């Protein structure tokens, strides 16, 4: 199956200079199958219109496409369609929660929203392996409310250090926000253990599911989180679309951040009443074509099966890790047993930017830099790393081509030591 589906992705036929393309940067953004691209052609060519507001036939069709996307997304991550609020990306989704709590802390949202208010003495807990998208908004919330920002440290093996979990997540904790899977290390975090501690102290759980939803079966209801965020573009879907998932009771109580059209019931010059979720968080014209295209992507993923995707990528991770172990002078960041096909590493004597450049000259696309996780890199004593990340369209040949090129890097830059 996995060898056949490569043909569905037109970009894999692109050549980089004289080399074929091995795209190992799906952790940043995924490539799109033809059917997802076709949805844009079909939507804009056949049924484009503004949704929710029209009696005319195109508007009805566009609304159907939009709402069917919500149904598809609920099928992907669990819960009901009303629990899925569309955003521009996962970053906006995480901000909606943090900024909604900020507004609740400043008296917005009435009695309903008081449960989200933070005061000095409260704490917010994140982890040292967060993407900036799940760190900076919480820093801002702490600054705005006087709450304290705390974090769970990361071990040398790239796992969350839970030694002091009970004292870090304590009775003062109102929010525990963490990533399901590290976008740098590939580590899968123990959601159950963290949710259990959050429940014990009555904290809300916010899950950054950007790197899990595309790569493994995920059900937010089973995981029992309160809010979760993910992006369409990392899961075969288009750019310009992400989602906030939440428990309905909480979504309906959280004050909206972006306000305007299509999220209100009554507006006078003086005041406004807001609709319940999901519309509450969907002010203005929505990414309708993008939702339609994402629905197609979800259908594609369902056909392949996310359990199969998970297994496939685990095999590729093995190939990558075993191969890298044979190349002198490469240090992989983290070695958690529970992981997806994402591997970040440091090449002794060669800066990540130069590593990436060399690999690119062989048609191998990897990511270099801090991957929006500066604190995590600091934890590992580097400012930047090189990251290879797989997806369902990658194969062993991509990995082998990557490993062959990687072995040439240090010799090329003249830093291969004696006897290497």
């Amino acid at each position, binding site marked *: 199956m996995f060898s056949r589906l490569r043909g569905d992705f037109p970009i894999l036929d692109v050549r980089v*200079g004289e080399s074929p393309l091995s795209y190992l940067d799906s952790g940043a953004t995924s490539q799109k199958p033809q059917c997802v691209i076709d949805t844009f052609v079909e939507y804009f060519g056949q049924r484009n219109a503004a949704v929710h507001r029209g009696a005319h036939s195109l508007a009805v069709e566009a609304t159907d496409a939009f709402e069917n996307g919500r149904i598809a997304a609920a099928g992907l991550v669990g819960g009901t369609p009303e629990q899925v609020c569309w955003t521009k990306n996962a970053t906006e989704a995480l901000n909606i929660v943090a900024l909604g709590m900020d507004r609740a802390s400043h008296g917005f949202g009435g009695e309903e929203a008081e449960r989200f208010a933070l005061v000095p003495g409260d704490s917010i807990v994140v982890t040292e392996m967060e993407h900036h998208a799940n760190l900076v908004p919480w820093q801002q919330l702490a600054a705005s409310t006087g709450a304290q920002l705390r974090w769970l440290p990361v071990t040398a093996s790239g796992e969350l250090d839970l030694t002091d979990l009970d004292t870090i997540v304590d009775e003062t904790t109102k929010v525990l926000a963490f990533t399901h899977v590290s976008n740098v290390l590939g580590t899968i975090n123990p959601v159950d253990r963290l949710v259990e501690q959050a429940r014990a102290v009555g904290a809300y759980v916010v899950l950054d599911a950007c790197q899990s939803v595309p790569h493994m079966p995920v059900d937010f209801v089973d995981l029992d989180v309160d809010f979760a965020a993910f992006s369409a573009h990392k899961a075969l879907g288009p750019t310009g679309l992400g989602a906030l998932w939440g428990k309905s009771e909480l979504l309906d109580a959280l004050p909206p951040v972006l306000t305007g059209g299509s999220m209100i019931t009554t507006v006078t010059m003086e005041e406004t009443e807001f609709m319940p979720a999901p519309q509450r968080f969907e002010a203005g014209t929505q990414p309708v074509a993008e939702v339609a295209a994402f629905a197609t992507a979800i259908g594609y993923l369902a056909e392949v099966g996310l359990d199969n995707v998970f297994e496939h990528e685990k095999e590729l991770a093995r190939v990558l890790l075993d191969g890298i172990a044979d190349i002198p002078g490469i240090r992989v960041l983290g070695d958690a047993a529970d992981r997806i096909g994402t591997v970040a590493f440091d090449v002794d004597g060669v*800066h*990540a930017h*130069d590593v990436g450049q*060399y690999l690119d*000259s062989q048609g191998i696309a990897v990511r*270099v830099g*801090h991957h929006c996780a500066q604190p995590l890199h600091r934890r590992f004593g580097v400012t930047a790393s090189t990251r290879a990340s797989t997806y369902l369209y990658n194969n062993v040949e991509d990995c082998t081509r990557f490993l062959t090129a990687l072995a040439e890097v240090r010799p090329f830059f*003249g830093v291969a030591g004696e006897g290497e």
Partner: protein
Amino acid sequence: MSTQMQQLYQQVILDQSRARTGNEALQRDAATGPHGYSHQVNPTCGDEIELETELLDDGHIAVRWSGDGCSISMASASVLSELAADATAEQMLEIESAFHELMHSRGTMEADEGILGDAAAFSGVSKFPARIKCALLSWMAFKDALNQAQAAREEKHHA
């Protein structure tokens, strides 16, 4: 190996990225001559450089820097420091401007070795938009720090 890669990573660059001329402890306010300091960060990759300039009595500029970055950015700082050892402030600004133009030429310009010296070796970089900032990072810091040093000298004159 593609020729583009060879043009990018010319031997001068690989050598200079290891030589790191000028990579030494900053003196900051312990410097005796008029001096300036700049800290530049490339947010996309985390590369950074701290660089200081000190105007010497003989009309030359001492450059000291410390930084962390790719071979292009380190080599660029190193070449800059070497050039500074033999040039006046005016000459350096001329080089800076020629270098800036070269970097933004997207491979369409011949580098003028007469002006640029070893910095001409970076002409391949202009074909790699993502690397232009790497090559320019130390030069941005230099221009900023030199400005400050010159301002400091002005002040001294008028004091």
